[in-house]
């Protein structure tokens, strides 16, 4: 364990009867880090988060936050942690403002970020919670978790239901929190989201942590496709020779180049030719898992 370890899981295991939630999870997250927990549905992300938040008691092993045990010291931990539960449900009878008041009163002092967050996410505090769309409920959940400016945020699929504009707003909020030194643990099944906001990522599947990578390494390992249209016929061999290129498929003037890692040399090579058009696509999570595990993963389970 490093000195600045903020969230630590040691052999964290949860079984529901015979069903595995998560097994043998070892993880250390440092102060000021944004850690992404990436995996398909039913991989064990929510089970892990519920154990961190003291909702579930580990079958084996332990989870701790700031040196406090997630189960035993749950109350003390929650004074310092903001949480967005997965598929969050709110009290429908309350108005948004009343709901914020209600949760606000469980902690000492007024919530410093509340007015700013209401403004940023465009919440109407007079609306009844039960009349809100799922996107707006998610916005309220974000405000509830962040308004006290906690040292640590634990977020289960925080952008679920948000429209793209609000997702961007949320990402910039996370960036600001990172600059303030907050530690953030977020689960997601969206690769581009994790890549965009996280420093490091844990890849989880079927109740087990498969790998932990820095985002830099992830980007290096990630397979991407570059589709190029040349004005003349080009020999595929000169691209196949490049170290970052793993595969070239050519037909007529078109070429699909599969790339892993830094593309600088590839761009130089392309510049020697007359390029008419070029697209460089991000892989989907399906592609990513295909590259990572070498097999299909059913993400809609």
């Amino acid at each position, binding site marked *: 364990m490093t000195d600045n370890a903020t969230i630590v899981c040691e052999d964290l295991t949860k079984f529901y009867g015979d069903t595995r939630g998560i097994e043998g999870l070892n993880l250390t997250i440092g102060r000021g880090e944004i850690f992404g927990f990436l995996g398909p549905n039913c991989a064990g992300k929510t089970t892990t988060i519920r154990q961190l938040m003291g*909702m579930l008691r580990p079958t084996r092993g332990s989870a701790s936050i700031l040196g406090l045990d997630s189960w035993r010291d749950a109350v003390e931990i929650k004074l310092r942690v903001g949480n967005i*539960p997965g598929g969050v*449900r*709110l009290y429908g009878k309350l108005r948004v403002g009343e709901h914020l008041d*209600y949760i606000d009163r469980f902690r000492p002092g007024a919530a410093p970020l509340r007015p700013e967050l209401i403004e940023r996410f465009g919440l109407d505090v007079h609306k009844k919670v039960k009349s809100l769309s799922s996107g707006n409920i998610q916005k309220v959940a974000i405000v509830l978790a962040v308004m006290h400016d906690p040292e640590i945020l634990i977020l289960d699929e925080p952008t679920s239901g948000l429209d793209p504009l609000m997702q961007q707003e949320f990402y910039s909020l996370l960036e600001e929190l990172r600059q303030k030194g907050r530690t953030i643990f977020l689960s997601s099944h969206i690769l581009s989201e994790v890549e965009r906001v996280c420093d490091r990522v844990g890849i989880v599947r079927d109740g087990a942590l498969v790998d932990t990578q820095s985002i830099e390494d992830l980007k290096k390992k990630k397979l991407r496709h570059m589709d190029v249209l040349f004005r003349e016929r080009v020999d595929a061999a000169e691209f196949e020779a490049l170290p970052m290129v793993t595969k070239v498929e050519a037909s007529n003037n078109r070429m699909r180049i599969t790339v892993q890692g830094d593309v600088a040399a590839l761009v130089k090579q392309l510049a020697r030719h007359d390029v008419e058009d070029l697209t460089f696509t991000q892989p989907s999570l399906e592609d990513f898992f295909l590259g990572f595990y070498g097999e299909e993963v059913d993400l809609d389970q």
Partner: protein
Amino acid sequence: MNLLVRALLDRRLSLGIYCLGAAAYSIMIIAIWPSMSDDLATLEQLWENYPEGLKAAFGAGVSITTIDGFLTLEYFALMWVIIVAPFAIAVTTGAIAGEIEKGTMELLLSQPLPRRVIALTRLAYLKIGLALIIAATMLPILIGVPLIDEQASFSGILALSLQGYLLFLAIGGIGFLFSSLASDRGRAVFLAVGVLIFSYALDLLSQFSDIVENFHFLSLFNYYDPYRYLSSADIAWGDLAVLLAIAVATDLAATAIFQRRDIAV
């Protein structure tokens, strides 16, 4: 405190309806009495002609020709329980199982709140709510009975209030225990109502069968005797102690279970 205030605010309407319902029934029963008591002989005859089973169901050895008996038979023996017990069961089954089912328990437990405090606050709401409903039941009787030129024993009404309070706390405790074990409210309600029906059936059948009578102590209603309290204010401390013990034991067990259990839908 925040939790308790919120509970009182959120449920002020339903609590108000329970109080109004209980009070309205009290007023109605008292309003009927003068017309009934005008012809006591007929009333008594009518009562005597009831089948034994029906009489037993309402309470053996109760005379309908006194206001105490009339109140007991027409209200406290059964109707009052039917009005107030659902409140106790609704509050307690909603408190844990209901919130887990709705998914709001996860939000609540994301706040720095000990589970013990959540449980105790829910119980505090039950205690306040029941006290208000019982007050709403008894005040019209205390005020109304002298208005129709009858006598109501203040100590008898007080004694019955205490006994009823403990009975409903025990029923609430049983609901709370099932609530702490379940993750959906329907199951908790089903089990709590099951215990009530079992209690009532046992109470009824033990009037007819000596064998069942041996198990009468298992019925909650074995410890509830409204006529005795109303007519003589003679408190059976043993009965009260049993009801109190059931309430305390179920509350403690439910709180302990809730503190240890997983919260997952």
